[in-house]
């Protein structure tokens, strides 16, 4: 028996080791190290550094307006994404689900932008915003397209949202479509017989049946939107000035392009992780409760 137990653990070890070693080296240990660096004054170049306690965290909340600005800007972005991405994706999913012949075609077309990387999407859209739109505004009646989409802070936020939604809606749409396919047909028919109109059917039959899909999509949007980087990098680079700088960009700048304050930048990373974690937990709690209720 003992021999057997030993064998069991030996084979468990042998099978798991390759994955675990690489995982530990490149994900687990860096995560722990990041937590440790956040309480040091390591600057990346100097080999010696010391423990400074919570100094970094105090500094970033009291003496770093750019970081606080980036948090607010990111929050604004997250709220818009959570609302628009889910509303548009659900709307498109419901409409596509109601089609018979063209269902597959529309699903493919709406999903396709999601296949491209965010950075490629941002480059492509920069071409559209800075070259194609101005020409269209000049030569056709579509004059409203002739804005400084990337250069004017008023419009650059909108531009960032447009590209993010363009890329992200398809993904959520697929999850909503799967949820909609799980709504039993007989419930809808019963509602029709009871005289419910289309809107009543949607609010009282369809929506309660897809709360699980909504939970998932809110989770994914929230989780992804806080980590936004590529779209902003490709479109505005955080500018003009720092007006569109997001948290991740502020961290990157602190660590790699400004002053190599790795310890301080690690403290910012910890804050980012905590923000994502807290929002995710709150959201899961709230929507799970709704799920049980319905």
């Amino acid at each position, binding site marked *: 028996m003992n021999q057997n137990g030993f064998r*069991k653990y030996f084979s*468990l070890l042998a099978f798991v080791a390759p994955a675990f070693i690489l995982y530990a080296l*490149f994900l687990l*240990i860096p995560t722990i190290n990041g937590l440790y660096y956040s309480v040091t004054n390591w600057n990346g170049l100097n080999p010696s550094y010391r423990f400074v306690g919570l100094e970094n965290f105090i500094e970033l909340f009291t003496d770093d307006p750019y970081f606080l600005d980036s948090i607010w800007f990111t929050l604004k972005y997250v709220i818009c994404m959570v609302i628009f991405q889910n509303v548009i994706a659900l709307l498109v999913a419901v409409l596509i689900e109601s089609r018979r012949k*063209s269902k597959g075609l529309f699903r493919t077309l709406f999903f*396709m932008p999601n296949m491209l*990387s965010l950075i490629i999407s941002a480059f492509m859209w920069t071409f*559209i915003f800075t070259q194609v739109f101005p020409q269209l505004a000049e030569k056709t009646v579509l004059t409203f397209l002739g804005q400084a989409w990337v250069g004017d802070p008023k419009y650059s936020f909108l531009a960032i949202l447009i590209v993010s939604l363009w890329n992200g809606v398809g993904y959520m749409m697929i999850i909503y479509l799967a949820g909609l396919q799980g709504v039993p047909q007989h419930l809808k028919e019963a509602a029709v017989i009871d005289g419910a109109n289309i809107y009543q059917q949607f609010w009282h039959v369809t929506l309660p049946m897809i709360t699980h899909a909504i939970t998932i999509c809110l989770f994914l949007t929230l989780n992804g939107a806080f980590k936004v980087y590529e779209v902003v990098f490709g479109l505005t680079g955080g500018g003009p000035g720092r007006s569109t700088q997001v948290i991740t960009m502020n961290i990157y700048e602190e660590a790699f392009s400004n002053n190599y304050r*790795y310890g301080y930048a690690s403290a910012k990373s910890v804050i980012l992780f905590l923000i994502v974690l807290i929002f995710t937990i709150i959201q899961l709690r709230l929507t799970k409760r709704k799920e049980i209720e319905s």
Partner: protein
Amino acid sequence: MRRNQVLSWGVNLFLTVGALMAMFPIYMAILNSFKSDGEMFRSFIALPQSISFANYREAFVRLDMLSSSLNSATVSILGIAGILLCASLAGYKLSRTSGRISAFLFLLFVSSMLVPFHSIMIPLTRMAKALHVSGSIYGLSVIYIGLGVNMAVFLYHGFVKSIPRELEEAAYIDGCSEIKMYFQIIFPLLLPITVTIAILDFLWIWNDFLLPLIMITDATHYTLILSTNVLFGEYNKEWSLILASLVLTAVPVLLIFSFFQRYIMEGITEGAVKG
């Protein structure tokens, strides 16, 4: 009846306009990649006078897109192969072994899926330097394996539960060694989930920007996205070249999409529902 028909037309119109908007940037990029700069600035929406591959030729000759395409392909293939091998072994064994250690290891893999990449970016560069894996394509693929196994272990773990144990017991009684049994009996049975994971990881690695950006400094090791980024960062943007390289980066992904669309969509819903 008539009201329903009007509504139906309205929905069709809405979806068509939406789909056109979704396709517009991709169509524009492809269309204009066949035009010269001058022709482009006369009109972006006009069809090209002749299909010319001059931009692509220049991208390959002057920017060595061939080498960055090969780099992207190498990283993707090595990374995916490593993830599939390591994660299927681990996911299978963790799923078949009960007990605290196995449950703890699984939890460790799964909980790390929440860690944002930006939070480990700094310590990761240091680790990569210490292990001498930064700055090369092979090193980059090893890092991708380390970052990608957690989700793959999670998906394999769930899939293995649906495979009956009797097969393994029979093979065991026949005196088959464990590792031989794994490769001859189990791994082939994991094919459906293996395809899903391979596609999802291809999309991730091929499209990834930040990790190569911080790991690769030498231009000969650039991936396609890094080359495009350098081109894009120049002050005088040569749009004809940028568009050609954007299309080159997008084409493999769109090809994979057209062949494996069903798998990709299933993979998304499966991953989402289990998560």
